[in-house]
């Protein structure tokens, strides 16, 4: 209630102020129009008296000020014309000082002062000096700040800068500097003083008001930075020390923070670089509550960008030992500010790291040094709970990865893994992910077991459960994604040297087997495939290394693999294990290791028999088994017979007839391996196909019995295709008659009234017939072979 009334009152006062100002401005205009200097002075002074109010907040006061400012521009123009009409500027300069009230007097003085400088009747430096000195009369913070801001505004294009038309004698730049510095100093003093005036309970309000005014003060620094004549030397010897002196001595948090930031933002990068020591030496002298980490971070950010902008500037960075200075300063600040929250320290180190990466990409020791310092700060504090801090740490740790695009570099940093210990599980995972993504993105190849060991230590958040707490918020999707990343990572591990690669594999195996049942299905397959890759490589160079006692021989690897796949049984993930066994078997086949291959097959069969009970899974599994077995060529007759016999046995025992049928006709291929003449048994092929036909028939009858309509002829068409295949391959047990008979059977079935129409089957059959026709039409030996087969294409299609 009180506050809202206050605001209303303030609006009222502002309105009244504006009204008073406008009324006097009106009379002033009239005086200007009639060239009446006396009245012009009188009414302008009255107009400016409205600015004497103490009732407005800075925000509202600014509104009033801006109006007065506009009017003063007109008055200034009038003064300029007045001097052309013969009134001397010096006279005018005196005349305005007759005003009894100081605030209007000084506004008028600044206005005439501007004309005075422009007239060049006196050196600019003298006028400026007088103006800035006279303005001391306003000790009221808000009014003083605005007056001085006006002074700064009207004089900023009239400084006796080098190259300016107001340039003076040899010390001209110094004069310009002196003026701006003095105005800055006074303004800052007024600004700081605001904090200490008025009742304590309005502290927050005052801080808000001060914040509204800060740019008035900061603008001076901007003006300073615009002075052409300020070279590095002058900046280092005069500007910076003077500004810093004011910043440090004002002992005001708000001002120190803002001004430090201003300094960093307005002056050129190369100046900062050359004066780092001076600038940094001010930092530990600031008030404890100043947010110095942000200040320093910004500085480092600027310097980093500067370094990144051009390689030519880098030598300067080395020359001034920028890193050492910054690192030193940060250390001091952290030491001095005991209460600085951990996030502050981490932010600082993070900025320094960014800087170091930009400027000294080759100095890995710097990076490690920074990490070490940061870890030192973290130590003894336990796991971090502060989410902001952990976020910063992630940034910190990600930076080297992004920069080097190479995890190997990070792995060389001894302090890197120490960091992970201070992260909570979530962050640990995030970080691990970042690392993995970096590897994946850059296709980094991790090539030694030691590095792999280090890497897995880093990403252990993803490799195993970090603590016992049960996953209440377990997100399956996230988990899958994470583990897929890990899987991809495992694929990236490679060394051309088999010995080392084996070590890598062992290391990975050690880690992933400890990862718990949930992870195994994700992590085992890539390891297996990676190992198989090694096996294949070994096989490629087998000739040269075989027989020796090298530990990296396929046998040994297969042993490892066997153990690894076994681990999946704890999950359980029998289907996956089965596939992997088959893959291994095939690889063993390629290595001519019959016992090993046989063992893998045995394992697969055991799994099939003991673990895979779902009929769909069985179907898939049996087809995989058949497919793999078909490609095996190392087995002796006995082993082969055992395995094929088992496989056909499994096929015939599938639950559904159609599945049985399909598995059985697939088995026919086990007896007919192309390019292996001793592995072609046409009779057994035919036997399989016939058995398939019988099953198809049985299926058809079952359909008739249960549903009253015959099932699809699909199975027959499929079997027909097998017949055609073996026929073409030259299996003498497949006769034309049997094919002919099968075609007729299908045709009849399809025309039967009880048949369920099946467009897919129709199409399949039609295209099968077309194939026969095509072969016939081709001519030559094939055509001759097919020639006797008769069918009526036109009728069926």
């Amino acid at each position, binding site marked *: 209630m009180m506050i809202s009334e206050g605001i209303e009152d303030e609006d009222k006062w502002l309105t009244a102020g504006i009204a008073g100002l406008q009324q006097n401005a009106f009379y002033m205009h009239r005086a200007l129009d009639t060239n009446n200097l006396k009245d012009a002075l009188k009414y302008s002074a009255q107009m400016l008296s409205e600015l*004497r109010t103490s009732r407005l907040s800075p925000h509202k006061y600014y509104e009033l000020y801006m109006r007065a400012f506009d009017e003063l521009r007109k008055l200034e123009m009038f003064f300029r014309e007045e001097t052309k009409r013969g009134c001397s500027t010096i006279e005018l300069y005196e005349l305005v*000082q*007759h005003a009894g009230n*100081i605030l209007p007097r000084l506004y008028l003085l600044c206005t005439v002062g501007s004309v005075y400088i422009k007239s060049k009747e006196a050196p600019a430096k003298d006028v400026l000096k007088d103006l800035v000195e006279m303005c001391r*009369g*306003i*000790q009221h*913070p808000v009014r003083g700040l605005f007056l001085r801001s006006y002074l700064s505004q009207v004089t900023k294009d009239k400084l006796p800068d080098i190259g300016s038309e107001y340039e003076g004698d040899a010390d001209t730049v110094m004069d310009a500097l002196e003026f701006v510095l003095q105005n800055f100093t006074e303004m800052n003093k007024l600004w700081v003083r605001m904090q200490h005036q008025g009742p304590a309970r309005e502290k927050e309000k005052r801080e808000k008001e001060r914040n509204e005014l800060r740019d008035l003060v900061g603008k001076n620094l901007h003006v300073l930075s615009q002075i052409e004549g300020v070279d590095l030397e002058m900046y280092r010897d005069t500007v910076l020390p003077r500004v810093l002196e004011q910043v440090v001595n004002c002992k005001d948090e708000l001002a120190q923070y803002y001004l430090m930031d201003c300094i960093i933002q307005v002056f050129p990068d190369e100046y900062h670089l050359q004066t780092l020591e001076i600038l940094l030496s001010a930092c530990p002298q600031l008030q404890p509550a100043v947010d110095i980490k942000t200040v320093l971070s910004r500085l480092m950010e600027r310097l980093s960008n500067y370094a990144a902008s051009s390689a030519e500037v880098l030598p300067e960075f080395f020359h001034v030992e920028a890193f050492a200075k910054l690192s030193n300063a940060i250390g001091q600040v952290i030491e001095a500010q005991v209460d600085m929250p951990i996030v502050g320290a981490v932010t600082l180190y993070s900025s320094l790291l960014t800087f170091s990466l930009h400027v000294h990409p080759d100095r890995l020791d710097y990076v490690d040094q920074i990490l070490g310092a940061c870890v030192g700060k973290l130590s003894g504090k336990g796991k971090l709970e502060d989410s902001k801090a952990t976020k910063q740490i992630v940034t910190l740790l990600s930076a080297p990865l992004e920069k080097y695009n190479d995890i190997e570099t990070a792995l060389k940093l001894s302090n890197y893994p120490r960091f992970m210990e201070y992260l909570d599980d979530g962050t640990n995972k995030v970080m691990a992910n970042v690392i993995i993504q970096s590897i994946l993105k850059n296709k980094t190849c991790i090539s030694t077991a030691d590095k792999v060991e280090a890497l897995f230590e880093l990403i252990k958040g993803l490799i195993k459960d970090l603590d016992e707490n049960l996953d209440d918020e377990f997100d399956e999707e996230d988990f899958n994604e994470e583990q897929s990343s890990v899987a991809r990572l495992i694929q990236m591990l490679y060394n051309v040297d088999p010995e080392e690669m084996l070590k890598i594999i062992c290391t990975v195996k050690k880690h992933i087997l400890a990862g718990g049942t949930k992870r195994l299905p994700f992590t085992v397959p890539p390891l297996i495939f990676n190992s198989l890759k090694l096996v294949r490589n070994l096989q490629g160079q087998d000739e040269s290394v075989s027989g020796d006692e090298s530990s990296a021989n396929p046998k040994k690897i297969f042993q490892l693999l066997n153990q690894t796949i076994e681990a999946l049984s704890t999950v359980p993930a029998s289907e996956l294990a089965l596939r992997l066994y088959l893959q291994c078997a095939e690889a063993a086949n390629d290595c001519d290791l019959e016992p090993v291959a046989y063992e893998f097959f045995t394992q697969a069969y055991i799994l099939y028999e003991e673990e895979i009970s779902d009929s769909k899974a069985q179907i898939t599994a049996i087809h995989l088994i058949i497919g793999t077995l078909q490609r095996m060529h190392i087995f002796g007759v006995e082993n082969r017979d055992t395995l094929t016999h088992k496989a056909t046995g499994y096929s015939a025992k599938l639950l559904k007839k159609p599945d049985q049928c399909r598995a059985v006709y697939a088995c026919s291929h086990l007896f007919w391996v192309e390019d292996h003449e001793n592995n072609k048994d046409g009779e057994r092929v035919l036997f399989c196909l016939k058995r398939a036909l019988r099953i198809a028939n049985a299926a058809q009858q079952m359909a008739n019995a249960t549903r009253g309509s015959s099932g699809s002829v699909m199975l027959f068409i499929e079997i027909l295709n097998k017949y055609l295949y073996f026929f073409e391959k030259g299996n003498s047990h497949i006769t034309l008659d049997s094919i002919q008979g099968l075609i007729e059977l299908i045709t009849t079935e399809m025309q039967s009234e009880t048949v369920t129409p099946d467009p897919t089957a129709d199409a399949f059959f039609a295209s099968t017939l077309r194939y026969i026709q095509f072969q016939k039409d081709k001519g030559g030996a094939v055509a001759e072979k097919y020639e006797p087969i008769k069918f009526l294409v036109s009728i069926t299609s």
Partner: protein
Amino acid sequence: LNCWSESFGICFYALQNYIIGAFKPACNISITFSDGKTRKQVPLKKENGQTAMVPLFQSQENIAGKISIEPVQGKKVEHNGIKVELLGQIEMYFDRGNFYDFTSLVRELDVPGEIYERKTYPFEFSTVEMPYETYNGVNVRLRYVLKVTISRGYAGSIVEYQDFMVRNYTPPPSINTSIKMEVGIEDCLHIEFEYNKSKYHLKDVIIGKIYFLLVRIKIKNMDLEIRRRESTGSGANTHVETETLAKFELMDGAPVRGESIPIRLFLSPYELTPTHRNINNKFSVKYYLNLVLVDEEDRRYFKQQEVTIYRLADTS
């Protein structure tokens, strides 16, 4: 103050009308100065409140001219002698109409006789000592006047006056020290102020500064005042009148320790006179600079310091 002098003017004017109405003057008297065309004329505020332009003299000048007497048409003026007097007079307002002549010079113009027609008399007072300046104060005035008297017997004398102004110029003082002083209230406010001179001429500028050594009160603003102290009479009858001629704001807001505030006050806009010390034991006019600090509760803290004002010869 203004009010008082105005009502006085009205009274006087009425009296004069009465005299004119009763006795029609038998002749016109005119007084002209021999260098009247070239001599500088300055405005003088007369008793009736009107301003007239009068010639300006300084001490030791020759005052010469002509006086012509022209009887009204067809009349003769019979007289017991004609004289012209140069009078320097001080009039105290508590004793109005009673002039104290500190200078009185007489020149006889004619012996007793009759005037039938216009007659002109030259006169001259040479190297007249006029040590005091013309002054129009609150309670006192000092004036110079030429008084022509045509003495007659019972008919009463015919008198004519001509005012003129005297200003005396002083060379710049050979010693003109600054005024520097530390003042304050214990543990509350300590300031040091400095005015660059102790003697200022009328168009001078006061330059100075105020240095705050200790500030424990909340100051709102600070003014520099120019005060004129006119004291008349002597002993128990001394009457003192103080006027504030200028109120010049020096500072707005509350300074902190260590601040120094500049002073630059141009004297030309103010109607000052030179300092007059014990003019003929009748009156004194002194000037003071009064530094006034006002705190937020409107309490005033001030320090008054006498400065001497003198008239510097116009170089222009």
